[in-house]
């Protein structure tokens, strides 16, 4: 296989040259780094606001920068629930005394197959703590494992005025335990959706000086589930992620992002189920800090938007992520 690598100025063996690379190059690289962490944290996942349903639609969990061959990493995520959207879009804050906090430790890796293609694997480990009325509990386990493919048709900042353009695909498998198979009343050991899910998407990135903006959009389809002999199917889920940021010296990058998730009514035996759509808007800030020569530290703070009508059938929470990534070039 012929592999077209980026110029060796990005190699760890040529740090002096790397230090002199243009501001645009630095911005492009850091933009990608930040896009990775934003993507990890904010790509809308199927019912991601519910810790039990984590793991679907992770389109770019471990994205490689143009000069990287492979990378592995771990992300920690915490999210506290502060309210919820009902099926009609009404919003209510959590009742005093009720509490839900979700945690994740996500292991991921990615490898490059040629200059434009990369594949990744994502394994989430999920824990949930719930206190509801007189009940309380906590539990967790392996979530739904996802694999993804990214094809960079045009790398950002490499072809004049062209923006970076990438095609995305992902598949998650139901390795987690769905809530209805959990072994505790509050289903805190529910860690997965119980469904396969496939996603296709496109991402566009534009670099302007030390700033960047990126827009990604995905469509995801979850496989049906059967209960009491009747099959429930799901509408395609549409997700979008808008991110922008600015790169400072030493490739430190800060940015902001907003994501949108929208899924139509589920169907039972072909008939739409009223008020079963899903929607959520999330916004946040992100930070990427490279350190040593082959490590990155990435973090986000995020909050779902608690405005009535902006969500459906989702809990509303806030939280943060912290990821550490080791990459090889």
């Amino acid at each position, binding site marked *: 296989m012929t592999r077209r690598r980026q110029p060796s100025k990005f190699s760890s063996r040529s740090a002096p040259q790397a230090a002199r690379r243009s501001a645009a190059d630095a911005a492009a690289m850091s933009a990608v780094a930040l896009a990775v962490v934003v993507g990890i944290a904010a790509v809308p996942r199927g019912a991601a606001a519910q810790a039990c349903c984590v793991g679907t639609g992770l389109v770019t969990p471990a994205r490689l920068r143009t000069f990287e061959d492979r990378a592995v990493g771990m992300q920690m995520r915490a999210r506290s629930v502060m309210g919820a959207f*009902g099926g009609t879009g009404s919003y209510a804050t959590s009742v005093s005394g009720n509490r839900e906090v979700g945690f994740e430790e996500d292991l991921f890796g990615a490898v490059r197959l040629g200059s434009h293609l990369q594949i990744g694997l994502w394994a989430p480990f999920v824990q949930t703590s719930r206190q509801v009325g007189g009940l309380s*509990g906590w539990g967790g386990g392996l979530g739904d494992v996802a694999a993804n493919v990214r094809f960079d048709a045009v790398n950002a900042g490499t072809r004049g005025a062209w923006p970076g353009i990438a095609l995305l695909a992902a598949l998650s498998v139901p390795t987690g335990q769905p809530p209805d198979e959990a072994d505790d009343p509050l289903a805190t*050991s529910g860690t997965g959706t119980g*469904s396969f899910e496939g996603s296709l998407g496109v991402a566009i990135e534009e670099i302007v000086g030390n700033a960047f903006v990126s827009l990604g959009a995905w469509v995801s389809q979850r496989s049906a589930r059967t209960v009491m002999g009747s099959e429930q199917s799901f509408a395609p889920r549409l997700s979008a992620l808008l991110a922008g940021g600015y790169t400072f010296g030493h490739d430190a990058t800060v940015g902001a992002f907003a994501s949108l998730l929208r899924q139509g009514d589920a169907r039972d035996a072909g008939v739409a189920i009223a*008020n079963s*759509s899903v929607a959520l808007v999330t916004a946040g800030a992100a930070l990427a800090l490279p350190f040593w020569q082959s490590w990155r530290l990435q973090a986000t703070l995020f909050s779902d938007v608690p405005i009535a009508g902006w969500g459906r059938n989702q809990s509303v929470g806030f939280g943060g992520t912290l990821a550490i990534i080791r990459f090889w070039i």
Partner: protein
Amino acid sequence: MRVVALCVCLGLGVAGLGCGDQAIPPEPPPSFAADPDQLLASDSGALLIAVRFAPRPPALGSNAVELSFTDPGGATMAGLGVEVVPWMPAHGHGTSVSPTITETAPGRFVATPLYLFMPGSWELRITTSGIVDDTAKAAFEIQ
């Protein structure tokens, strides 16, 4: 001690092993209002179902439901077998504990506990057998 247990659970989670810890306090018998929360027809129309929740309206946490079955003329339907599955259609899952169904009077059933652990739109998917094989759904909201 709880912190230690949580750390153990986190470790098991990283190892890919699920675990959980739940304290379930004893619950008093549910009491239901006289007037129903919902009046449903079964999918075939052969049954009318009066649905009463406790607490009322249903809330996050432990709930109970009483289902009273009559024919369209209002006559009590004795001799039914009943199954109830709480289901959250938006997320495509049910509850982890199947409710116990008790016939408290001819044609009147109580399902408990309903551990509704997430806010949003829920359904009770009801299946009857015996003298009438039928299905019905009671939709309700939890916030």
